[in-house]
């Protein structure tokens, strides 16, 4: 067996080991490399900046355990950003597990906030928790919040929360952020919030799903999009609040280069094999 054939038939465990080293090394020994900001992230950040201070903002938190490491730091940065603008935030999740993760991301943002920023539950933010019904649930929430939910994530009646006194539908919000792109639900927001209520919306999803939503960005239905861990890292960078995403983005650098290197190597060896007439 030729050396080329041996490399092309390499045991997959060697590939796995290489990937493990490529991902683990930058985490154990952090090296910060320059990060170029993508246009989708810049658009999403500028959209967040353009929201008038003190506005009501609706946020769908859709990160689950699997996607929380990628998109969670971005949502944390988003919450931090909006609370420093004195915005009033209303959170909800359309699947059960993300309701928990949304609260984790709220808690992470609150822990980072300077003591001077007001961030009281029920006054500056409200987490409505899990809303069942998928897209119909979103439509119902947008039309009449109280027809869908009577208590918040902590079991407090929403009528007792000062922040909820004046809001009951999507008409009362200045903007929306949809952080559940990874669950494929961004079109729910576009169909139920952007279309009927003309509510400007930005979103986030895992890196691999960015192309799925690019038509919505180019049509203006999405004001921007944070894609995966890089999107989260870019938000932290634009906000000048370093967080876990920046360190993780460096790990994806080496992992991604390893992936590209292997694909390149595989093709060079494959073409060499073909030129030599080997099978």
């Amino acid at each position, binding site marked *: 067996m030729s050396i080329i054939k041996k490399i092309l038939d390499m045991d997959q465990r060697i590939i796995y080991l290489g990937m493990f080293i490529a991902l683990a090394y930058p985490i154990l020994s952090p090296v910060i490399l320059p990060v170029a900001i993508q246009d989708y992230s810049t658009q999403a950040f500028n959209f967040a900046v353009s929201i008038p201070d003190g506005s009501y903002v609706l946020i769908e938190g859709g990160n689950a355990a699997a996607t929380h490491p990628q998109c969670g730091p971005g949502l944390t940065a988003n919450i931090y950003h909006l609370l420093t603008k004195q915005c009033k935030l209303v959170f909800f999740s359309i699947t059960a597990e993300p309701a928990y993760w949304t609260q984790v991301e709220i808690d992470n943002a609150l822990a980072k906030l300077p003591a001077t920023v007001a961030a009281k539950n029920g006054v500056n933010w409200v987490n409505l928790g899990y809303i069942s019904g998928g897209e119909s649930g979103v439509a119902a929430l947008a039309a009449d919040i109280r027809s869908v939910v009577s208590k918040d994530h902590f079991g407090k009646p929403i009528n007792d929360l000062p922040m909820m006194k004046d809001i009951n539908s999507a008409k009362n919000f200045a903007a929306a952020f949809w952080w559940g792109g990874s669950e494929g639900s961004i079109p729910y927001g576009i169909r139920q919030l952007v279309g009927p209520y003309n509510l400007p919306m930005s979103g986030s999803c895992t890196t691999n799903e960015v192309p799925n939503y690019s038509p919505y960005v180019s049509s203006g239905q999405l004001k921007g999009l944070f894609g995966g861990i890089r999107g989260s890292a870019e938000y932290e960078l634009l906000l000048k609040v370093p967080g876990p995403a920046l360190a993780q983005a460096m790990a994806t650098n080496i992992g991604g280069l390893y*992936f590209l290197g292997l694909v390149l190597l595989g093709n060079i060896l494959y073409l060499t094999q073909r030129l030599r007439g080997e099978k």
Partner: protein
Amino acid sequence: MSNRLAKISLPIWLTTIFGILMIIEFFFSMPKIVTDTNTLLRSWVTIVSAAALILGTLILTIAHVKRAYERKTGWYYSLIYIGSFVVAGALGLISVRETNFMWIFNNMTSPIGAALYSLTAFTITSAAFRVFRARNWKATVMLVTGFIVLMMLLPVGAAIFPPIVPIGEWIRSFPSSAGFRGMIIGISLGTIGLGVRIFLGRQKEHLGIREEKKEAS
């Protein structure tokens, strides 16, 4: 009430009437009675969905209990499910903010979910090394495009080769976006077609009726 009326005709009529009510509200300004009815119907959907979640959990549990009781292949996995369900369910019923329930979420659900998702990095890398080859011109186009977009998505990509960012963004914003837009339009047209078929009673699968295809004569 005849069997057909109760099982087929009535559900089709209800679907059609309420479906049309929802659609016209989207396009036209409707009287308050219509918007109030629609709001009520939408809140019913959330209640029915929540009930369906409970029903689904019960059916899954019954299936696992049956499998474990009958000692079918992999019955011990069913025991793990039943054990996990009882422990997490009981702690969750006490309070979802309870420390033990949170411990399960933080130390079991979260790492398991993240690990499962992370495994794709390893399997995709191995698969790409073996399969992602320039075997013909179509595969070469895909390979080059994939290479550029991935390089553009890597934070270090721009530092290695700066023009990769505008090239990658052009691919994402134009050819890729155009392809996905076509898919979205196709799916939307298909959904409209399906909706019309349901309203006309030509599609009955949502009622649990599977019609046999007529054999071509």
